């Protein structure tokens, strides 16, 4: 199960934590700097201060609804003069954000023992699904697990070749079909093969699709039903890969993919840039979807587990 995978590797954890901190350093410096800048306007925390703070959070892509909610609570306290200084304001803000991320639903995956765990990877075009799958299979392989990749993106030019290269890099077999083939059919083949071989994990690459395309979204539903028929409870995980540069449309993506594909978690990709990925806070708040991993580069080891506390801590250190 994904969420317990990294628990066992204690010595590795600090390394990963350091790297994750690095990935969010820019975010942190930026946010901390701005809060400081904003609050040092006047000595008293007045309405204008909080208004500017609101814009600051929005500029980290948290979105206005989430920002309003978080600041609403701080505003009450500030009005009653219960918050005295910047430090306290930061601490309270951190608490609020952490509470939202912690409230995300992280029920462990249920699977019948002896059957493969099926992970369906979905998302809009260009978020990094195939790259994430390559890195994810490396994570499982490093744990000594057997993995089978399913190339169900039969639509995008050279998507299958791309997954095969990742398969070679990580020593993982890829089940594929012809470009333009039926994604459910190749999924069927992959799951049958995985069942016969008692493979631990099957990771399914799907074509990128905009969440507004109804017919493409119902294709995902069909894939889910196909999976269920072969392996009870499959897909056990459906990961939505989201680009960290995504703005408020991320919420809409999460809503629609959850509705059509039953998303169970988010992978926040491209966090090694300057983007903040704050929309995941809004997503956690509204849909209770946890962030499972963050992508911080194009190399095979550039996928890190996401820990809400570490994430928020590093934002406000």
């Amino acid at each position, binding site marked *: 199960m994904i969420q317990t995978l990294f628990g066992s590797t204690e010595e590795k954890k600090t390394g990963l934590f350091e790297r994750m901190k690095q990935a969010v350093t820019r975010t942190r410096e930026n946010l901390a700097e701005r809060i400081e800048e904003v609050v040092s306007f006047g000595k008293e925390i007045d309405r204008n201060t909080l208004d500017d703070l609101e814009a600051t959070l929005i500029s980290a892509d948290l979105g206005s609804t989430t920002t309003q909610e978080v600041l609403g609570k701080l505003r009450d306290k500030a009005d009653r003069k219960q918050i005295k200084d910047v430090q306290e304001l930061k601490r309270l803000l951190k608490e609020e954000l952490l509470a939202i991320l912690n409230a995300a639903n992280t029920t462990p995956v249920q699977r019948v023992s002896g059957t493969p765990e099926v992970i369906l990877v979905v998302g809009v075009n260009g*978020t990094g699904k195939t790259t994430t799958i390559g890195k994810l299979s490396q994570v499982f392989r490093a744990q000594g697990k057997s993995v089978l990749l399913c190339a169900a993106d039969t639509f995008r030019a050279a998507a299958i070749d791309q997954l095969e*290269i990742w398969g070679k890099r990580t020593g993982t077999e890829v089940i594929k079909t012809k470009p333009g083939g039926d994604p459910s059919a190749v999924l069927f083949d992959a799951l049958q093969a995985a069942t016969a071989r008692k493979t631990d994990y099957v990771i399914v690459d799907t074509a990128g699709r905009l969440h507004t395309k109804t017919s493409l979204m119902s294709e995902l539903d069909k894939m889910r039903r196909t999976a269920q028929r072969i392996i009870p409870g499959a897909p056990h995980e459906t990961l939505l890969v989201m680009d960290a540069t*995504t703005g408020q449309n991320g919420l809409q993506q999460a809503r629609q993919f959850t509705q059509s594909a039953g998303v169970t978690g988010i992978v926040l990709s491209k966090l090694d840039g300057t983007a903040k990925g704050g929309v995941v806070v809004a997503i956690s708040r509204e849909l209770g979807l946890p962030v499972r991993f963050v992508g911080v580069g194009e190399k095979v080891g550039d996928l890190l587990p996401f820990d809400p506390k570490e994430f928020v801590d590093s934002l406000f250190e």
Partner: protein
Amino acid sequence: MFENLQEKLQRAFKSLRGQARLSEENIAEALREIRLALLEADVNFKVVKELIDRIQAKAVGQEVLTALSPGEQVIKIVRDELVETLGKDTARMKFASQPPTVVLMAGLQGSGKTTTSGKLAHWFKAGGHRPLLVSVDVYRPAAREQLKVVAQAVKAQIYEGEVGEANTATVERLVKEARREAIVSGCDVLIVDTAGRLHIDDELMNEMQSLKKLLNPSEILFVADAMTGQDAVRSADEFHKKLSLTGVVLTKMDGDARGGAALSIRQVTGQPIKFIGVGEKYDALEPFHPDRIVSRILGMGDILSLIERAESQIDKKKAEEMATKALTGAGFSLEDFRDQLRQVKKMGSMKSLIGMLPSIGPFSGLQKAADNVDEKQINRVEAIINSMTMHERNHHEVINGSRRKRISRGSGTTVQEVNNLLRQYAQMKKMFKQMGKPSFARRMAGMKLPGM
């Protein structure tokens, strides 16, 4: 979802009645709402601040007009300001005096450079040019293979070359070879697809700079995802500083992103948005219309795009046939009804369609109603009609109790649902017949559409 900006402004201006001029005080609340609307549309926070200042400067002191409500008046100022920011000029592609004209594609990972390269090749071909494609993305797995497939799909020439080692030297060699190939084979445009890169990746940004030096491109296009949030400003700014971009292509505009990134990118680069990508097909590249995206950014619907989409999706002849049939009372069969449902389905989800309408005036309430529309309902109705015989579809009156039972079983629905459909159909047919009568047309002509 979010309350429409215009509604918010209307409320913000309630207190304004009876005042002659817009003043700093009486528009403060309205500006706050505008600011939030722009932020919600992912316009960068600093860009918003500048826009608000300019809007305020223009609004303050204006007389309150009688023709427009103060809310509408401010909306007009906002809209004009945004359109102006985005640039009214229709952007053209520049061509080199000495061919080949080189177009260099630049952007972050996953923004859609390769697909856009293919679309551009298609666009150049349609304009009578001979484009040559080359991919210098030697880093991402199968990236060059992807462009090859794209080139085949748009029937454009591609220079493949040999990669060898994946480094800048290879990249430089490839473009030199491709340029020679263009000259030799008489191609007048060279489109160079590059690897996606982070604007803070110095090594790869240097590579871009050396490509620029080598190629002296006529166009350096920044390909950006319409869904980009606040960070759009930083990446666009860095790319522009290092490369002096000449234009922007905004991709994935066929989704429901509000597209505030367009404003941010235009503001920091000063360069025009030349194209928008509106689909996965290679002809889905459109010129950019500032006024349309402004409506979208402000959450006021994009009626023109909706109409265009409807026009392109609906079989016009069929629709006209159907209208004549229905209005002359020549019989609007269940078969016709099903055709109509299919047309609606082709256009995409009801919600996204309704989302393109403004949520004011005659359309208010529609957005909320859309949330209650069960997309599956259309499928069920279609299934019911599919389970009827041709005779039943053309003569619904023969459908008796036992036929209803059979139809419901065949379609996996209930007899009640079949009954419902038949009842609704009968009502619709009756209504159409009335509409076809001259008296109805006269009555309609005398009526004004509310709020238009």
